[in-house]
């Protein structure tokens, strides 16, 4: 008889097990890596690693003229292209003290709201898909196509428009602009309840989102969270209300606020924003003046007077800040982009710690991160 062999396996009390989620994980919606430390299935802590598509847009801007910069801002948050264009345009106009025609203000706000709906639709598709409901993707994209058609008709492109430029718009909108938006609202009012039937009321969906990743109002303010994610926690941060710009001061609308701040309420905040955006669109369309002026008189070479200018704009994901330091040349001395997703990302550790790894996908989906906007 041979001697009995003993295998000793030492079980560590608290083994640290680290996995990488991303950079090519489908539910990070882009190249973002989460370093997740797990204990069993529970997340102990999470470290986001970004910079995989850092393109140095701020550096590039320092050697480009203001009309050229517009084309780079599309590429930040590509789902809020109009708002990004508008932010830089408004900042340049503020510096030059230019008043754009009333009609342009209305068109800009209309395009922003359409863009907001399109962005929330895509978020809804992806959020449903992250949680296992693949059908959502087809419903959402079917309706988003209608908005992209309106963009194509008026702006010439579907995703990266570069349509809003300093001084006004690139060119006039299509004569059918108002009618096609009215048709879309009529269509989408019928379709949006389908979203609720399909996903909102679903028991599995509710169980996977309610009371999950709760963010208090204090946390939201402290971490600089903005957009629907913060408004679900009761932080009234809508720049359209706080520092109104374009045509928003002319109309009356509701700021969607929830108080609980869990994943489900972040979901609800965005769903309600789609409804509210349609109301805003109708009000803007009713008030929009007729005519064909689409730009203010601009000099061929734009040179900003020496100084510092800041413009805040509400994109689909939160507050975009453009900070231009000018030394009087045709290129900015320094251009800082305060992007909403950059701030929104870093609350992930606080929200996910203590939850299961499957919930991580739900929580990151509810923050609606767009990675190019983080990395710039």
């Amino acid at each position, binding site marked *: 008889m041979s001697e009995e062999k003993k295998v000793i396996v030492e079980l560590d009390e608290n083994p640290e097990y680290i996995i990488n989620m991303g950079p090519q994980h489908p539910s990070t919606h882009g190249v973002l890596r989460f370093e997740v430390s797990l204990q069993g299935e529970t997340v102990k802590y999470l470290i986001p690693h*970004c910079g995989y598509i850092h393109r140095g847009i701020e550096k590039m801007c320092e050697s480009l003229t203001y009309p050229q910069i517009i084309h780079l801002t599309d590429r930040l948050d590509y789902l809020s292209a109009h708002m990004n264009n508008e932010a830089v345009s408004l900042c340049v106009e503020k510096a030059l003290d230019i008043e754009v025609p009333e009609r342009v203000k209305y068109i800009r706000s209309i395009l922003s709201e359409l863009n907001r709906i399109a962005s929330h639709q895509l978020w809804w598709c992806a959020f449903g898909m992250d949680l296992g409901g693949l059908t959502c993707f087809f419903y959402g994209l079917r309706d988003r196509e209608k908005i992209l058609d309106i963009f194509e008709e008026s702006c010439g492109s579907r995703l990266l428009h570069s349509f809003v430029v300093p001084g006004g718009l690139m060119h006039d909108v299509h004569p059918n602009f108002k009618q096609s938006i009215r048709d879309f609202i009529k269509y989408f009012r019928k379709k949006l309840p389908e979203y609720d039937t399909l996903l909102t009321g679903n028991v599995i969906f509710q169980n996977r989102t309610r009371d999950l990743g709760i963010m208090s109002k204090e946390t939201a303010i402290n971490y600089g969270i903005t957009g629907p994610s913060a408004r679900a926690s009761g932080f009234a941060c809508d720049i359209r209300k706080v520092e109104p710009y374009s045509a928003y001061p002319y109309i009356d609308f509701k700021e969607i606020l929830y108080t609980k701040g869990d994943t489900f309420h972040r979901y609800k905040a965005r769903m309600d924003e789609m409804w509210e955006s349609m109301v805003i669109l109708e009000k803007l369309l009713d008030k929009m003046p007729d005519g064909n002026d689409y730009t203010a008189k601009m000099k061929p070479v734009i040179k900003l007077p020496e100084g510092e200018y800041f413009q805040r704009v509400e994109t689909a994901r939160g507050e975009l800040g453009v*900070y231009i330091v000018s030394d009087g040349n045709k290129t900015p001395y320094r251009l800082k982009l305060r992007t909403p997703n*950059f701030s929104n990302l870093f609350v992930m550790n606080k929200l996910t710690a203590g939850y299961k790894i499957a919930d991580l996908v739900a929580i990151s989906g509810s923050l609606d991160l767009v990675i190019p906007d983080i990395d710039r």
Partner: protein
Amino acid sequence: MEQEQLKEKIVALLPEAEFMTNKQYLDVIVPANKLHAFVTTLKETNDLKFDYLFCLSGVDWQTYFTVVYHLTSSEFGHSIVLKVKTDGRETPEVPSLYDIYATAEFHEREAFDLFGIKFTNHPDLRRIFLEDTWVGYPLRKDYKDEINIIER
């Protein structure tokens, strides 16, 4: 609160503050060694309550850097801009505000990554976008990268 009122309050809180004229916000230049205590008072004073840091940026002024803090109050809605000048550009140092605003931790990492401004007491001062082995700080005006940046 109007800019004039705000200015009076700040003169009372920090007599050595310098002011700059700006149409939009009140610009205050704060000495680096007073920054942390001053911002804590700004956040905790009852009628100021600057609790939301919405932008933190670095600017390279050739001989020195400035760090620009945009603060606003979520309750009252008034805003202020704080500017801190660094001492030269060899070893730029500014105190970290991570314990006052959680978001500052990550914006400071960005300023460190792209400008090389060192934030003292920062818990985790690493590069955020570029890889750790990257040489130089790209947003500095004297940064040269012949391979990747085309000079015009």
